[in-house]
């Protein structure tokens, strides 16, 4: 039985997509990470799209959460694409010199899918 997650994780073709609508505080973060990784394992997804368009503040804690998910997903052969970052958040992250490692970024979900499909094709060759 998968870890219950307050934040929905949906299946979209071979990929997973999740769009947190609430602030991810510490307790939720652990559950969310676990749920994401369990879902990746269950569905054997090659890609995860994290849509953060509803999140207005991304601090170093959230960057850590995202990086952790991406690293673990990577180990399972799953790429992570971060999308929906607002310009304000992007500038703030740049100014704080916070780097999101091991994560693709895309302007929207459509482009995220393209990135994941491209990575999938690459593996086939």
């Amino acid at each position: 039985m998968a870890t219950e997650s307050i934040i929905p994780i949906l299946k979209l073709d071979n990929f997973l997509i999740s769009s947190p609508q609430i602030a991810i505080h510490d307790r939720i973060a652990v559950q969310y990470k676990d749920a994401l990784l369990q879902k990746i394992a269950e569905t054997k997804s090659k890609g995860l799209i994290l849509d953060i368009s509803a999140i207005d503040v991304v601090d170093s804690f959230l960057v850590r959460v995202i990086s952790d998910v991406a690293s673990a997903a990577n180990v399972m052969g799953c790429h992570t694409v971060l999308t929906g970052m607002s310009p304000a958040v992007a500038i703030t992250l740049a100014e704080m010199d916070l780097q999101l490692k091991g994560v693709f970024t895309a302007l929207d979900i459509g482009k995220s899918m393209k990135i994941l499909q491209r990575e999938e094709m690459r593996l086939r060759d």
Partner: protein
Amino acid sequence: MTDYEILVSTEMDIIAVREKVRDVAKGLGFSIMDLTRIATAVSELVRNAFQYAGGGTVTIKTIQNLHRKGLEVIVDDHGPGIPELDLALKGGHSTSGGMGLGLAGAKKLMDDFFIDTKQNVGTTIVIRKWL
């Protein structure tokens, strides 16, 4: 001039406080970019206070100098203090990882940044952003 003093003792408070600061800043007329900078800086500092000191007090003040208005936020805790402050302010090293990143990040985002920390006594951080 509005003042708010908020006690932080749970993780939920981190989010509540940053939303409150954001509200006050918005009322003052800060741009959306600055609102995000301020909220993020506050989030970093309050998280540190919660994580290392078990909580603290956050004071939100509208301030004014001769030329313009601004926002001041004071994060005060009675925690262990910050060791190797210079290192932490430069962005930290891997062992102080989270703390270093947050502190240095908050400093970069705000206009004014003052910190007073004493081992086993606590830490007080004052940050300001001007319109």
